[in-house]
């Protein structure tokens, strides 16, 4: 027999144990906190990723420009920066622009140029087009232009930071410990089907909607074609992108309440619908019939966020893990409970939601009004 001891690991602990890691932390009182804890928590799940993508979504970090759209762009060449900045000046009024501060580190290789622009859309917009619509259309224009510029964050008073590396390395690179925010989500990537590049790291976003995801969306093709009918162009070469556009379409454009929107993404099974009271049955049937093309098939655990809300959701048969921790106003969502307890050892509760049942964290009403004018507009729209 062949002697395998040389090539075998005696203790069998060399198994590749990768799976994406997701994490979210929100202070529902609106109090802003530094990213240090979140960075520590996502780094505790280091082994779930493989260094080919890490990222963060950060809410409430730009109180000096709360009402401007904060466009964050990656440039793969300096020529594309010149072209795109001309485009931005032409289409927006740019109140402030700067390079996103970074710290040169040994591990981050070939980073793109990353700049942020605090902008207002023009005063007079085409009829039936809101400021949000205008921004979405311009983001799609830039991302499909083919000149090596990508908008990867476009909401108000929020930002995405992401790139190729482990999440803790990306945090170090973008100096995230220096920002204060009331809501943070984080991701460590283990790319399964698609290339690892800076735009392909999570979170994916449009306006202030962001998504971090562990799993695979096997319905990507159907979802993508449906979203294209509404003007969303998938350009990041990764399945998760459709979730960001789907929540924007369902909740912003179609005004569906969150509780209904999640039933589109993770619809109840038909046999469950049959056991519901008649009124609920009719509602669920209508949702499945209207939005069948936005059903997310395949395994997923996601943390979806926008200004004022953080949502945890898994697929209907929970093929990816999600643990919830609560401590006073703090709400945590994580792939693993140990990451939560590392930064908040004495939780009030820790539990795992049933597949398809959302966990929703909302800013308390009193904090909501003072934290963001943008939210007031949204409420009165």
């Amino acid at each position, binding site marked *: 027999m062949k002697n395998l001891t040389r090539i075998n690991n005696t203790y069998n602990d060399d198994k590749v144990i990768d799976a994406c890691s997701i994490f979210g932390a929100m202070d529902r009182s609106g109090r802003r906190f530094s990213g240090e804890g979140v960075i520590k928590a996502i780094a505790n799940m280091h082994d779930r990723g493989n260094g080919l993508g890490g990222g963060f979504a950060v809410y409430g970090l730009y109180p000096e420009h709360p009402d401007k759209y904060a466009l964050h762009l990656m440039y793969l060449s300096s020529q594309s920066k010149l072209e795109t900045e001309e485009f931005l000046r032409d289409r927006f009024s740019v109140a402030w622009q700067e390079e996103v501060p970074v710290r040169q580190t040994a591990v981050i290789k070939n980073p793109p140029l990353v700049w942020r622009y605090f902008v207002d859309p023009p005063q007079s917009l085409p009829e039936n087009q809101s400021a949000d619509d205008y921004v979405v259309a311009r983001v799609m224009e830039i991302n499909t232009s083919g000149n090596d510029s990508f908008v990867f964050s476009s909401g108000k008073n929020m930002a995405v930071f992401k790139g190729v590396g482990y999440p803790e390395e990306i945090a170090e690179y973008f100096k995230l410990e220096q920002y204060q925010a009331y809501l943070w989500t984080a991701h460590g990537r283990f790319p399964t089907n698609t290339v690892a590049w800076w735009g392909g790291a999570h979170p994916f976003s449009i306006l202030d909607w962001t998504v971090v995801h562990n799993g695979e969306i096997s319905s990507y093709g159907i979802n993508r074609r449906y979203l294209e009918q509404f003007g969303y162009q998938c350009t990041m070469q990764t399945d998760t992108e459709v979730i960001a556009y789907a929540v924007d379409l369902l909740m912003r454009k179609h005004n569906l309440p969150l509780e209904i929107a999640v039933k589109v993404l993770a619809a109840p099974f038909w046999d469950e619908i049959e*056991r519901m009271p008649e009124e609920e049955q009719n509602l669920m049937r209508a949702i499945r019939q209207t939005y069948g093309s936005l059903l997310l098939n395949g395994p997923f655990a996601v943390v979806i966020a926008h200004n004022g809300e953080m949502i945890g959701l898994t697929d209907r048969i929970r093929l990816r893990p999600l643990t919830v921790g609560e401590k006073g106003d703090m709400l945590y969502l994580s792939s693993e409970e*140990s990451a939560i307890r590392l930064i908040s050892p004495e939780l009030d509760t*820790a*539990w795992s939601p049933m*597949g398809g049942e959302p966990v929703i964290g909302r800013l308390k009403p009193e904090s909501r009004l003072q934290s963001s004018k943008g939210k007031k507009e949204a409420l009165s729209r």
Partner: protein
Amino acid sequence: MTNIREKIIKIDAAGIYYRDLNARLRDTIADGAAKIELTNVHGQRYIGTDLNKPVLVEIFGTPGNDLGAFMNGPRIIVHGNAQDGCGNTMNEGEIIVHGRAGDTVGLSARGGKIFVRDNVGYRGGIHMKEYKSKKPVIVIGGTAQDFLGEYMAGGTIILLGMNLKEGQDHLSKYVGTGMHGGVIYVRGNIPAYHLGKEVGVAKLSEKDNAALKEHVTEFARLFGYNADDILNGNFKKLYPRWLRPYGRLYAY
């Protein structure tokens, strides 16, 4: 000099990488340690894997995925919650969780016992198996999420529902989907539509009751409950209706 076998060896696991922690466990046990206490455990995986002596490992904190995977003999006590894959393919020994456990507790277990005080996540006991005297047992004090006993091929799962409110059903749906061996004893109500179509429901026989009493008594002793109070509850037995549920799946 105190004999290492009589001492409790304490290891502060804070910041120790899982491979280094497991290597220290192996070395300590090779040196003859019989009791080990791990504190500040935060997500280190595979704790107890490849240990094949009846040592006691007490864990304070949150052990990582696949706690006790392939373990052969030790007794692990968790003062906290366990994550996913607790007792993965374990062969012999015990895992006692003073809290809840995540998804796939006892997956593919082929021996040993797992006691969880509170709830377990999805797919508890998935593809557990048994052979002759090797019969794994999982006792769950609370309730379970979906697919309990999925593809179960052997062993025993006992679901006690002690935290269910009056009239509340067990959470788990698709119980025993693909089940083709072993047995599940359930205390508390589980609606018929929650059961996989491979599952039959029966009253407990005398032999079932004897096995149930043995394991529930041990569970009650571990967590400080009164065994009679638990055993007085209304139990039913779930069993596989066929030994080869998919025998004709690929036959024309």
